[in-house]
């Protein structure tokens, strides 16, 4: 168990910089998820922490010690790979014991630790099998077991669930959550799936194009995204963005004109922009209400998921929105709806994408 600190971390491959100065404090025993679209640098960042890539600049400490130039094995980390990377010619037991064998741990300790990890992961009956005789989920457990046996200060997971099918992924997610409580170790978890990040992490680091966009608790990111990128990335279905113009501004709130006649009053934290400024309004599909009266819209298409209904609509000025409604709502293409937005669940972004 240990804190992980990144200071001004940069990484270039040749002339091409992929991590542009990341500062991050991961606390002891914390579960942190790195999320972002593919190519955002989340895996590279994890590999830098693991020591599988060299830092181009900056400092990395684990448990208070600078580890910039330490090889992976000496950093006190363990890693679970996307493809599991089990040694195909070794049994599950040997896979888990390999690292300890190399560090000349005595046989008894190895046996104890492997058995304990196997018990925790419920794979005691699989220890004599080779990876090819294991299912995807079982391989995953052996890979996690191999990490546990090392008793690392920090666990690193690189998209560990992406090779599993949907059902198994949900189940394994639950088990990792339980593991987190059992082991109480620092964990860093890379995923492109924001649901995994939201459900598992104590804190989420949203990365985009090699930069940290926001760090925060899952619901903070959901409710108070710092910028348009985070707002659009966190939440499913994704947030609606509308082009709006400031109609009035007074201390702590801005009124923007909506398509149609209506205006919407939105509380802001920063100084109000002058009347006439173009802004982007962000509203999550689940925060759009349908009522007798409100912003007029025409239904374009309807997706029925049973428990909820997704309605694609066009506003009077041609902008499009997605509306998410609970239950199976009887609407059809061509219907006219009146939409209600609420200032407390709406967000305003300036032309640089920053939240007001």
């Amino acid at each position: 168990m240990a804190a992980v600190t990144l200071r001004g971390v940069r990484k270039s491959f040749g002339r091409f910089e992929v991590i542009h100065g990341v500062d991050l404090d991961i606390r002891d025993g914390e579960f942190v998820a790195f999320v972002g679209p593919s190519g955002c640098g989340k895996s590279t960042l994890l590999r830098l922490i693991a020591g599988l890539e060299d830092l181009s600049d900056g400092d990395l400490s684990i448990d208070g010690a600078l580890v910039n130039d330490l090889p992976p094995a000496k950093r006190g980390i363990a890693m679970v790979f996307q493809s599991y990377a089990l040694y195909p010619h070794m049994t599950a037991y040997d896979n888990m014991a390999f690292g300890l064998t190399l560090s000349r741990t005595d046989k008894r300790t190895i046996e104890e630790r492997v058995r304990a990890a196997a018990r925790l992961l419920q794979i005691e009956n699989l220890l004599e099998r080779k990876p090819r005789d294991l299912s995807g989920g079982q391989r995953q457990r052996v890979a996690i077991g191999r990490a546990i046996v090392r008793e690392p200060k920090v666990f690193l997971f690189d998209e560990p669930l992406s090779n599993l099918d949907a059902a198994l992924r949900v189940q394994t997610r639950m088990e990792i959550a339980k593991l987190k409580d059992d082991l109480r170790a620092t964990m860093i978890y890379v995923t492109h799936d924001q649901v995994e990040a939201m459900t598992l992490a104590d804190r989420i680091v949203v990365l985009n194009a090699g930069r940290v966009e926001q760090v925060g608790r899952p619901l903070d990111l959901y409710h108070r995204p710092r910028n348009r990128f985070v707002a659009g990335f966190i939440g499913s279905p994704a947030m609606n963005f509308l082009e709006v113009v400031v109609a009035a501004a007074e201390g702590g709130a801005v009124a923007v004109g909506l398509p149609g006649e209506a205006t919407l009053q939105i509380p802001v934290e920063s100084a109000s922009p002058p009347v006439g400024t173009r802004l982007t309004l962000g509203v999550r599909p689940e925060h759009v209400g349908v009522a007798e009266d409100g912003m007029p819209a025409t239904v374009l298409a309807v997706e029925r998921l049973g428990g909820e209904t997704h309605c694609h609509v066009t506003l009077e000025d041609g902008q499009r929105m997605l509306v998410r409604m609970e239950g199976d709502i009887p609407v059809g293409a061509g219907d006219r709806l009146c939409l209600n937005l609420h200032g407390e669940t709406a967000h305003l972004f300036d032309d640089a994408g920053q939240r007001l």
Partner: protein
Amino acid sequence: MRLRRTAGRIAFGLLVLGIVFYAVFPFYWAIVTSLKAGSALFTVEAWPFHPSLDNYRAIFSQQPFGRNILNSLGVSLSVVALSLGLAVAAAYALGRVAFRGRTLLLLVVLGVSMFPQVAVLSGLFELVRWLGLYNRMGSLVLSYMIFTLPFTVWVLTTFMRELPKELEEAAMVDGASPFVIVTRVFLPLMGPALAATGLLAFIAAWNEFLFALTFTLTDEARTVPVAIALMSGASQYELPWGQIMAASVVVTVPLIALVLVFQRRIVSGLTAGAVKG
């Protein structure tokens, strides 16, 4: 239509038979000849009507052929072991570590495989004499590296490159040094590639002629191909064809057995070395 198809089938069948006959007949003829003794040798008969093992007895009693086989075996096995050992290490570096000059190095290795052997003959002769290996097996083991190393390095590099990167990284996290990664993680996975390249190296070493002819002097030090090429009979002007064929059969049978058993491996080794580059 049906007639044409039948005719086509028959033609194809004849083609297949023709290919098999062409490929196998010379060897069959060698067997037939080797079983003929005395004057039967000089009659052209497709079947040995009075088979005799005289020729086989003669090559082991009148010639040091047993010794020649042991020489060839010793040389070939040492060549396989040495070239695989050197090539596995080199293939790890060439296949998995990015460093400047890697492509150039691979091309140099490929270039060496195109050297004509005669172009290194005098220099190697000098080296062999300087090392005191003249007329000894060591001279052949060393000199055969010139043709076995390039292709073992080349094939094993291609193979190493295909092994998953994460496997190596997992081993690094587990604290494995490059040496441990090669010997305990990669080597066990390379069985098929090692078998294929090892077989090819064995066959190449077993068949080599020019170096063996040049670096050995006495009958006892010769390898099988040289012994067969230089086999002489009672008089200098009469070649003991029966014995030559018997010796040819003896050295070829194990090779054919190897080919039959490992044909898939051999084919994959050949094509990995050539087609994939």
